[in-house]
């Protein structure tokens, strides 16, 4: 399964490793770019002062609690920008707070998944994410 890349926005290195492991276990071979804070993610997606946007990912796996710019802010900026407006965003977070869920969907997330503590369940979740967003889902292209 080679194709467009996945942007993983995750500040926790353990989670990063585990997420990558889960993707690998599900044989998702798409390139995974990891942004370790919100700013990095925005820079990657929208480009910075000096650089153009690097790539348009197939899906963004977005943690909410992030250093510098938090996940919701990243989502808002993405949705405000035409080039990133339709990129599927899956919020992948530890939180199950109602406010987080609500704000996530209000700001245009495509999916909200709580990371289960049981790694097997996590792997299962990642499998579904990969299948759905990378294979079945269609998005408008420019």
């Amino acid at each position, binding site marked *: 399964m080679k194709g467009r890349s996945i942007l993983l926005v995750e500040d926790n290195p353990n989670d990063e490793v*585990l997420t990558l492991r889960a993707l690998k276990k599900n044989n998702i071979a798409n390139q995974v770019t990891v942004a370790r804070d919100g700013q990095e993610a925005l820079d990657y997606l929208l480009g910075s002062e000096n650089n153009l946007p690097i790539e348009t990912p197939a899906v963004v796996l977005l943690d909410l609690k992030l250093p510098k710019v938090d996940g919701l802010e990243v989502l808002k900026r993405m949705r405000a920008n035409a080039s990133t407006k339709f990129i599927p965003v899956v919020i992948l977070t530890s939180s199950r707070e109602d406010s987080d869920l609500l704000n996530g969907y209000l700001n245009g997330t495509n999916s909200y998944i709580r990371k289960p503590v*049981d*790694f097997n369940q996590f792997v299962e979740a990642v499998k579904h994410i990969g299948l759905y967003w990378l294979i079945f889902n269609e998005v408008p292209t420019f």
Partner: protein
Amino acid sequence: MVLLFSVAIVLQFILVSATKVVLDIEGWITPALLSEHGYVIGRMSPLTALLFALLAAAMLLSASVDNGDRGRDRLAQGAAAVVFTVSDTLLVGYWYGAPLLYGGTFTPVAATTSIAFILVSTAFLFESKKALLARWVMSPSVFSRFTRMVIPGTMGIILVVGWVQTSVLTRLRAVDQVLSFTLSALLTACLIGVLAVIVARQVQTAVTRAEGGLRDSEQKLRRFYESNLQGVIYWNMNGQIVDANDKFLQMVGYSREELIAGKIDWVNMTPPEYRVVDEQSVLELRTAGANEKPFEKVYIRKDGTRLPIIIAGTMLDEARLNGVAFVLDITDRKQVEARLARANRALKMLNACNGIAIHADNEERLLKDTCNRIVEVGEYKLAWVGYAEDDEHKSVRPVALAGTDGDYVEHADISWGDNERGRGPTGTCIRTGEIVINRNTSTQLHYDPWHSRATEKGYVSSATFPLCVGDRVYGALMVYSGISDAFDDEETELLAEVANDMAYSAVALRERSARVEAEERYRSTLDSMLEGCQIVGHDFRYLYLNDVAVQQSHISKDHLLGRTMMEVYPGIETTEMFSTLKRCMSNKAPGHLQNEFVYPDGARSWFNLSFEPVPEGVFILSEDITEDRRLAEEAKKYHEHLEELVEERTIELTATNKELEAFSYSVSHDLRAPLRSIDGFSLALLEDYAPKLDDRAKDYIGRVRGASQSMAVLIDDLLQLSRMTRRELHIENVDLTSMAHRVIGDLRQGEPGRPVEFTVMPNLMISGDANLLRIVLVNLLGNAWKFTSRKPMARIEFGKIQKQGETVFIVHDNGAGFDPKYSDKLFTPFQRLHNTSEFPGTGIGLATVQRIVRRHGGRVWAEAEINEGATFFFTLKGIEKP
């Protein structure tokens, strides 16, 4: 004594005259010593002594003369006459130079002594009590006139003859004694002849005149008698009236036949009380022959009535047995006099009563005093006042009485209604308001019920006067007189005035006492009021203060009363309070003011003041509201502070909530992340290094994973619990029945094939937060589901009961139950009553349930026995829907 002395003198006189022996009385009673020392012992003539004795006897007799005892008087007069005659003789002896006459053979009587005796005896004759002799001599009768002329005449003859004898004849020494005697006898005869002629002429004239006068007066009397202008009677001392003119007969009501028959007796016709006057008159007639002045007396007519007359009599004969009298009817005059006297008394009574009204201080006193004065000064028999009562019998209540017989009124039982006992003068007077006069009660028919008693008491006439206030008659004054035909117009008018004055004064006093009573009542009310009450006069002088007002003034009562506000509180004129007071006084309109009063010592108090104009000035009601204001201020401050406090607390609470939210957020994110790492890497270890790990190592890693996973559940439950307290409630109508069915449906899905009998009461509607109530049901039904897992036939019921007017929801199961002694620990977070290996769980569920129920204003509790199932009860304050 006088008698003995006189006898002794007479004896001596006889003895001396007959035997020439001197008894020498002086010698007997004088000590011999005196004459031996040469003192001269005077001797009085026995004749002088005798005369003295006679005079003394005359005086003593005269002094002891009683009325009507003529014998002694005559004796006294005779003795005096003897003294007079003897002393005359003695004097003549001196005059004629005949010692035998004045001395005889013993001690002579001095000439001066003789003169003295003449004077003293004459004086006695005229001055003694009756002076019969003198009066007889001085009387106008012919005999007396004769006597009056003869006595001085004979005296004169004696003097003249004596003078001739001693002065002329004695000088003619040549003439011998015979010649001298002859000449004296001739002279005496001549003088007596002259005197006789004079006296005879005088007597002749007197007699002639008397006879002419008598005839004349008889004629006049006759004419007078016949003219019938006055009553003329001829009477005698036997009491008979022998003749009378027609006028007299008409006056006394007898006929001429009765007169002729001798049936008219002036003694019998005279009432007993006039007998004395009659006797005096008779005495006068007997002695003087006529009444000096006419006098008043009364004759009783034939019909028994009394005839007041004025009468004067004179005797017609020398024997003074028959007389004539003139009688004048003075009935009219007497009546006028009586009326005048009555009017006078009434006037005096009116004056006397005037004083009462001024001094009386109560109604009862006034009425009583007035009645007393009417009876005492007005000389009435009885006076009483009755008030008309508005009772059933319309009775007349006696309220004051004066006079002889009070019980007459007491038993009179008078009414003012139009009935038998109300038709008397009192009832009539009160009913009609008119004065009722009964000149003679015996002739009044409607007086009947009281007639006999009134007669018995001697009430002959009566007058009744209405007592009015305005047009209303409230009582009557009754006056009773003992004489008939009393209460003529003048008298009635005066009494009416007394009655009116009394009525007016009584009402005034009654009103005054009512006023005083009311005043007293108001005053005591004011005194006991909790507000300050004071009355300030028009000159701003304190007239009245109750205790509270005195307290509020900070000054003693003595220093307030009678002083002005300006004196007590200098500068008060400039305060708002004072100007309000002044306005109230001048506009005569009430005023109100809430004002802070500053005392002279700087103290301050707030007052609620009300000003009310009253006749005396202004009434001030003052309420000290200092404390009220202080409390209100404090309450206001406290209130403001409270809001501040609440605001602060709200801010604090909001901050805390925010913090808590942030904390929860952080917990949910950050606490779970390491757990995921532990679980994830443990699994990675198992997967990647499985060949290198023995079974024990794999078991250990499995335990690490289990622990991390259960911790994740714990964290989730904790977060849910904390959310329960923070979440805002969204109240809506909730259908618990269908909600319970859904929850059980979920549970069945989780464990399909478990035989559970689930019963839910239909229509369990309640208003509350649906999400939270779902959590309650999830927990309670989940517990039931969980704890019945070991039962071959699980039974779960959900419903409601009414307990003490409250709706209680019940979740009952037939599961494991629990020891009831731990039931109070059930709802404590993390408290578990079962082993996790037996029944899994965190011990957060029931704590969450309790929080949610409490947030809905309800309670939750449980009953159970071990292995006997458990029942959970909860109430919700939300409005239950039918």
